[in-house]
């Protein structure tokens, strides 16, 4: 967890501001960028179940029997003070850590003991808190690797240029450009990722994760290092992603952003589930105020 946002946590929870209507998107781009996936559960039904998930490191329990659901079509915020287990929970879900107990199920299928790349193919994509793009590849190529998770050309197919390969490559350009337009960096498509400015790199990470056609998009502190204007833009983007039919799990330090964009919030503290509910409830929950914000506010 980075500490760079400490000073950005407001002393009191800001009032929830009704977001302005999202700007009309480039409808053509949005359509091309939209997922072609088939999700078994309907909107509002449970997409991911986190069931008594525990993670221990040596003797230290980082996550202690945490259970919550993620419902299809919502933006779920995962918050908590530093060391509360947010990132641990995240890593256990995406297969980076092996949980010591409990289960994570996506549409009823357990993700435990699955390889990381399989989890991504099953429909769980993420961004990284400390940006991890492939620096020598262009923005479009980064997105293309994400799109490739849905492609099936083999070494020989590529070598001989079979029709499926050509079809996949054409769709890569089309969908890749559309995704870049969707996040607003299409003009930098041919620029090396390492040469992009910080904000664009963050957006590129989101585009790359969307490219894998996720059922659940996990954003790990996507606003870290952003100024208020950029955060505002990011909120718009996250809402648009949700409106496009994606489900979003958002880990975030910035309370204004979390309160402003999420439909529901899960609060962790010391590896345990502290509270769960819509932002309005969480904001008024005395336990959350004392445990999470109280300590910050009293500084």
């Amino acid at each position: 967890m980075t500490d760079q946002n400490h000073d950005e946590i407001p002393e009191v929870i800001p009032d929830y501001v009704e977001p302005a209507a999202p700007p009309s998107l480039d409808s053509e781009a949005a359509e091309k960028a939209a997922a072609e996936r088939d999700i078994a559960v309907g909107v509002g039904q449970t997409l991911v179940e986190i069931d008594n998930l525990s993670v221990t490191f040596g003797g230290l329990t980082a996550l202690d029997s945490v259970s919550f659901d993620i419902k299809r079509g919502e933006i779920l915020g995962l918050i908590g003070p530093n060391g509360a287990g947010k990132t641990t929970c995240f890593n256990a879900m995406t297969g980076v850590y092996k949980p010591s107990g409990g289960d994570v199920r996506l549409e009823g299928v357990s993700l435990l003991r699955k390889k990381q790349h399989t989890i991504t193919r099953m429909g769980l994509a993420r961004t990284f808190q400390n940006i991890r793009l492939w620096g020598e590849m262009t923005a479009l190529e980064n997105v293309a690797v994400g799109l490739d998770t849905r492609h099936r050309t083999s070494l020989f197919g590529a070598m001989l240029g079979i029709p499926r390969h050509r079809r996949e490559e054409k769709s890569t350009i089309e969908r890749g450009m559309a995704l870049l337009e969707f996040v607003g960096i299409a003009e930098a498509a041919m620029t090396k990722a390492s040469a992009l400015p910080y904000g664009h790199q963050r957006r590129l990470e989101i585009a790359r994760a969307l490219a894998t056609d996720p059922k659940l998009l996990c954003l790990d502190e996507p606003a870290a290092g952003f100024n208020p204007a950029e955060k505002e833009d990011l909120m718009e983007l996250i809402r648009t992603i949700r409106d496009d039919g994606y489900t979003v799990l958002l880990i975030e330090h910035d309370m204004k952003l979390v309160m402003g964009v999420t439909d529901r919030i899960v609060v962790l503290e010391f590896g345990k589930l502290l509270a769960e509910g819509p932002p309005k409830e969480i904001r008024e929950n005395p336990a959350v105020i004392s445990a999470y914000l109280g300590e910050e506010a009293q500084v």
Partner: protein
Amino acid sequence: MSTEPVLGSEGAQKHLEELAEHANKPGRFAGLNQWWEQQPRVKQWAILLPIAAVVFFLPVINPPIITTEPGNDWPLACFDMARFALVALGLNVVVGQAGLLDLGYVGFFAVGSYVAALWTSPDSSAVHIPYLWTLPLAMLVTVVFGVCLGIPTLRLRGDYLAIVTLGFGEIIRLLATIIPAMRGQQGFKEVGHPPGTGSDGIPIFTNNHGTPWYMLTVGIIVLVMILLGNIERSRVGRAWIAIREDEDAAEIMGVPTFKFKIWAFATGAAIGGLSGALFAGQVGFVNNQKFDVVTSVLFLCAVILGGSGNKLGVIIGGALVSYIPNRFTSIADYKYLIFGVALVLLMIFRSQGLIGARAHLLAYGRAARARTRELAARRRTPEPTPDPAQEAAS
């Protein structure tokens, strides 16, 4: 169609425009490369074909100054350059693209040589087949070796892989010494060659006649380059670069890294085996003396010198590593020292090699480039401003 991006403040937008401009206009340093990329295919071919012709007939042209004679036979020196270029092309897949440091590449080369020798030399009691059939056979056998070496080792971290492959190269050499059927230093004589005799009844392919071997190898190089280029501009090539850049991130983003690493290893091994079989055919003699670690490092140097990850670069690198000691015979004794120092200096001062161009990884990259240019152009045309006269009237 609205071009309002979902994200982006004004400053960021400005930067984007600069980037787009930069991507589409020749830069000060990368000028030639940028210019080249913007030329239409036809024009590219028009420039390339004469160059290709010169390269193809290089041993016949025997240009003064450049020639390695009288020290070394020029056509044979040409074949040696081509052989190194082919090896570098194969090793480049493993080191340059997938980022796996293979220090035992000579092992694959050796396996290819022995395959050619075992199935064509009269010293071998194995079934004999025509020489040209040993080329695909050598590739097949080395792929098996590559996969057998890869499965246990490619799960390891990169630096362990380096030392294990180093060991593999040595094991192959030691086994060639220990196993009696491999005939140790005695070796296999009269390894086969492609069929065909000239008008004077002398076979076209002989040990001391480098030109036909060179042309055969150049033809193979062109074919290999085309096939490798296709792989490069596919999900396989992209996955390799992603693994090289950040393996963990690649795995998390859905790339089955282990499978792609095995593919890289197998591809590299196949090309190594192919060049080994060609070498065995030209020299006509295979024993355990030419496959030491030193040669592996020379191969590595070829890749790094030319520009790791760049096909044209490593071909030039391979040719140079072979050419320099043949041309400048007075420094031939120093070649290992020179190439060792060159590796260190290159890593410090120019890690991208002589030709530091980035490989293209999209099969239809031109379409995307055109789209980017179009977007940039649209951004530059100002919004239609209201007519001042009309404004005054209202």
